[in-house]
């Protein structure tokens, strides 16, 4: 009952932040005109609302929801409260793969697929590294993340700098890396929505198996959960979700870490509840963060990653200091 009311509250929060996100923008549009625009008015306001603001808000919701859900899955799988796609380097891997796809001149719809593949490779790598020497420790996961993130960052930098000479069209990449969810077209949104829907579906189906993991793989096995197949499926879902998020918005940090963690205090650590709640709360959080990114220093605009970093990093440090699982 309590879970249901919390989920209801989260839905309401998402709706309220989405309405705010559509009402506020670079140019002032009266609420009445916004409503008319949503109903299909045929003027410049209609185009601004339907082609610019609505995809932006929906994109932010998809990105935030995906990152938070992926974070919840990773935290459960690694039995580690400090994991998320950003911290583990999964986002960086997805970014690198997407940049490579653009450099190689692959068609636009293939970019999200590439970023999914990049995410899958990195998240698997982190999983393997984290299991070296037995149990997963906070330290190995974080170290693996740091290493993978710097490596992917270095390769991206190399590609960007060297391609200036090769006159490849990488300006677009720069825009995307820093652009957050600012400009998203409906076709991009459609592709991402399909990927996220699949990832989220997997996440919901797998949630109870992740719960079994809380007691360790051996216990999970005695509970009838096949550890290898489950791990593969969960890693796949994580990669789908973070790959789609990166393809839409580049690197956005800490949403995947903070949101599931905060929710655990509210509704407990059961993933059957945590997964849907994380998606809703992550979506609302990023829509609000995006709203902040365009209003805090208007008319200038911050990348949404700056906002999530500003709020997320201190939270992360606090968690790190409280964590008793650090083994040095």
């Amino acid at each position, binding site marked *: 009952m309590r879970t249901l009311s919390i989920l209801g509250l989260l839905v309401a929060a998402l709706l309220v932040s989405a309405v705010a996100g559509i009402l506020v923008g670079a140019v002032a549009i009266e609420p009445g005109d916004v409503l008319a625009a949503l109903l299909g008015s045929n003027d410049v306001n209609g185009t601004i609302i339907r*082609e*610019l603001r609505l995809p932006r808000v929906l994109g932010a919701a998809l990105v935030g929801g995906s990152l938070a859900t992926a974070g919840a899955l990773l935290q459960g799988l690694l039995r580690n409260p400090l994991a998320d796609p950003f911290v583990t380097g999964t986002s960086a891997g997805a970014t690198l793969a997407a940049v490579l796809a653009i450099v190689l001149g692959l068609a636009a719809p293939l970019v999200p697929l590439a970023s999914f593949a990049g995410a899958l490779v990195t998240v698997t790598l982190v999983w393997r590294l984290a299991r070296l020497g037995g149990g997963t420790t906070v330290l190995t996961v974080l170290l693996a993340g740091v290493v993978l993130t710097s490596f992917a960052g270095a390769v991206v930098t190399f590609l960007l700098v060297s391609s200036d000479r090769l006159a490849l069209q990488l300006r677009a990449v720069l825009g995307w890396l820093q652009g957050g969810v600012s400009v998203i077209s409906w076709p991009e949104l459609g592709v991402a929505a399909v990927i996220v829907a699949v990832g989220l579906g997997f996440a919901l189906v797998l949630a109870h198996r992740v719960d079994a993991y809380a007691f360790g793989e051996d216990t999970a096995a005695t509970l009838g959960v096949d550890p290898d197949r489950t791990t593969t499926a969960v890693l796949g879902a994580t990669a789908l979700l973070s790959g789609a998020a990166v393809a839409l918005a580049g690197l956005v940090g800490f949403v995947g870490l903070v949101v599931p963690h905060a929710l655990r205090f509210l509704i407990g650590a059961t993933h059957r509840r945590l997964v849907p709640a994380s998606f809703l709360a992550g979506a609302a959080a990023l829509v609000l963060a995006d709203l902040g990114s365009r209003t805090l220093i208007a008319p200038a*605009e911050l990348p949404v990653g700056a906002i999530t970093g500003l709020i997320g990093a201190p939270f992360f440090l606090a968690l790190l200091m409280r964590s008793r699982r650090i083994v040095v």
Partner: protein
Amino acid sequence: MRHRSLVVSLLAVLLLTLASCGGAVSVSPSPSVAASPFPATLVDFQNRSVTVPARPERLVSIGPSITAFLFALGAGPRVVGVDDFSDEPAEAATREHVGGIKVNFEKVVALKPDLVFSVKFSDGTIEKLQSASLNVLVVDPQSVSDVAKTATLLGKAVGADGETLARGIQQRVDIIKTKIATTTSRPRVYHEIDASDPAKIFTVGPGSYINDLIEIAGGANVAARASSAYPQLSAEEILRSDPEIIVLAADAYSSKPADVVARPGWSIIAAVKGNRIFTIDPNLINRPGPRVGEAAEAYAKLVHPELFR
């Protein structure tokens, strides 16, 4: 990575500033008039008083528009070094290169110039050149009205007839102005500088050279009331301002007309509907130099093609 894109944006702005210069109008240089005008005491663009003791024979030019002016003044043979961006006239590029965004001080000193011309630098480059006992004149034209001033100042500095060059330049601009004065139509113009961040696109505002060109060409810059010379506009603001003409830079790094058409929502803009998206040679319009008349005419042909048949 965010950090990197910031660095790149900064670089782009730097490049823009530095590249803001250049070109050659063929006004025949008349040999120095009157009795020796040297020693000459000049006031440069930083309001510093600079004394040129004798006719300078070895010139180094840091700034493409300065180089273009020196060649237009007939002082080309005396130019021994130029910055990496100086490519107008073509002969200028054959001179010794002394660096681009970062000036190579050793090279400048090794060229033993008796006068160095430079655009403004905020990183101490000018001071460093001076501390190497070089005579430095800061010349940094930023607007159309700076162009005549630059011609006169550089003429005095090298002992050439800058006044005639300035008048020739002014005449070409005036011809455009006269033509434009025959119409009251002022189409709305949106000039794109850089759309790397599609949410906040760099355009030109008041105080920029291109804004002057748009005005001379009989256009109404949609960002004419912005608060800076290179403001950033959001897509929402550009849609709302509904430009009738969109102008892009014709280079490898800029968006192409087809990219602009494909941007979400842009299909309702008048310029997109009317298929009036043009590209223009960035070197021609970025550098406040002797080719200002040519630049204004090229721009006017885009804005008022009916007047330039």
